[in-house]
């Protein structure tokens, strides 16, 4: 029996060891070395990279990443919750609506981000349309700013919020809403007092699924932010490319990972307390 189990686990264990733990170890070793003159790493061993992380310049980037990720997660929750509730409670079109939610995944995220850029740029559909209607004279600054980055993140990750929320809301017995209204709760209060607390596991799962990739996002800030809104992901990428400081890039990415693990632990434990 245990041999059978080992047989089943072995392939994924091999993948995890070869493609996750070994690279992670390499990153860890790199983070403790000195930068080479043309990229790469060399001796001596040092923890200088970790000390540099606490430079206020990088602290600012880290803080920006955290609040952009938090705000994007909050917006995803605000948008995703009513949508998930609507889908869960709709009687006829559940499958169709769920398919519509995941429909964007049929196209590459990169292409969809470019599509947004075509919509938002100065000569894009929105600005030229508004100009043609004489609503504006100058194009609105829709692209290459923090707002555009948040828009791109919310757009990209809202399905990851909707799906786990839908899964919990779908299991919720609609009679509980009847009971709440029967006891004097208006529909709004019923949702607030009954649906929201019972949907907490889904809200936590969805928030983690959105927050984590948002925190490490690099494509969206790079393209939609035009390089002006630098997030941790961009910082890491820069160190390995133009910055040619691999040890520092490795240290920052490990720190990002530690941050994510802390968030998962904190939220995950709260999720267990429920019910």
């Amino acid at each position, binding site marked *: 029996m245990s041999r059978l189990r080992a047989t089943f686990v072995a392939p994924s264990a091999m993948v995890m060891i070869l493609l996750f733990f070994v690279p992670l170890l390499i990153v860890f070793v790199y983070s403790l070395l000195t930068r080479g003159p043309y990229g790469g790493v060399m001796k001596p061993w040092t923890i200088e990279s970790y000390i540099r992380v606490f430079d206020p310049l990088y602290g600012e980037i880290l803080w920006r990443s955290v609040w952009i990720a938090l705000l994007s997660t909050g917006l995803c929750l605000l948008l995703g919750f009513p949508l998930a509730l609507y889908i869960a409670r709709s009687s006829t079109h559940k499958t169709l609506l769920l398919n519509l939610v995941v429909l964007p995944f049929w196209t590459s995220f990169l292409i969809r981000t470019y599509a947004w850029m075509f919509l938002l740029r100065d000569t894009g559909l929105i600005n030229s349309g508004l100009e043609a209607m004489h609503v504006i004279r100058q194009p609105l600054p829709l692209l290459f700013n923090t707002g555009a980055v948040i828009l791109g993140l919310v757009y990209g990750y809202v399905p990851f919020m909707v799906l786990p929320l839908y899964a919990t809301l779908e299991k919720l017995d609609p009679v509980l809403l*009847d*009971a709440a*209204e029967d*006891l004097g*709760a*208006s529909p709004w209060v019923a949702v607030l007092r009954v649906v929201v607390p019972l949907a907490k596991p889904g809200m936590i799962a969805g928030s983690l699924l959105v927050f984590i990739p948002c925190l490490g996002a690099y494509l969206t800030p790079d393209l939609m932010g035009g390089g002006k809104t630098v997030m941790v992901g961009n910082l890491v990428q820069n160190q390995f490319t133009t910055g040619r400081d691999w040890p520092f890039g490795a240290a920052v990415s490990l720190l990002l990972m530690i941050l994510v693990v802390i968030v998962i632990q904190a939220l995950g434990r709260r999720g267990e307390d429920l019910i």
Partner: protein
Amino acid sequence: MGEWFQAREPHCASIVFQKVDTVLELRALTKHYLTHPAVNGISISVARGEFFALVGPSGCGKTTTLRLIGGFEEPTSGEILLDGRQVAGTPPYQRDVSTVFQNYALFPHLTVAENIAFGLERRNHIAKSEIRAKVQQSLSLVQLSGKETRKPHQISGGERQRVALARSLILEPKVLLLDEPLSALDPKLRKQMRSELKSLQRRVGIAFLFVTHDQEEALSLSDRMAVMNQGSLEQVGTPRELYRQPSSRFVAEFLGGVNWVNGAGVRPEAVRISRERPGNHVHWIGGVVEACTFLGNCLHVETRLANDTRCTAEVAQNGFEFVPGDTVYIWWNTADELRIGNGA
């Protein structure tokens, strides 16, 4: 209101007249789903403090009727008068009725005490201390003191039902609506909860409108009951009236076993059976025993009569045994024949 009502106390033969104070009145209540009528022109009035049962087979519209009164469905036509005031159209949270749902619908994330306090907390201007006191009072009313910090999944089915009752009764509704409240319990507990429910209703004095498909439950619990069939009302009356003077074959058969012999309806317990030919003073019919079923407290003897109709007799356990093939004689008092009102 203002009508006179004949109340029959089961234990005294005298007929008491009293002015009836109607708390809930349904007038020609109708609910159509697309084309088929779920509830078809029902008129019922429930008196203050009355235990009223609504019975019928599944799909007869009794639960829909309850949901209409609770405000979860809007009637296609007809009126719902609560204390003389039309409530059709007002949402559930503004109606002075409360429902005990079939599976109790307790909030799983709240404790017993929080579940019970839920309704009071929705009302304005009630002090926290008052809520706490009332919750304690409700807990002791349904004998759940000491369980206030438990979650619904940590208590038994019977306790869950009592939480649901307390949660509704704490609001002192004009009518308490109960949707098959005993069906989720196991049979032994069901009988115990039946008497608890009845005594609770007597103590709080609130009118109970009780929906069930179990005729025995309705007969034993209610002051008056209504039998529904395919969305329409068949008959309204006291359990005794309905059992003894059903207005239709449907009511007669729904409330208990009936033998139809030569056009007359007789309950199995009224049928007399003997292996000896009775004297000429009774009008007997001959038959052959087909089967004999032991039910613990009685025997059911199924016979085939000379004219090929079947007749079941319920016989007390008095040592008599009937074997299939036995020739038997069957008779009954004409007073025990069911008087079908509408000439079935």
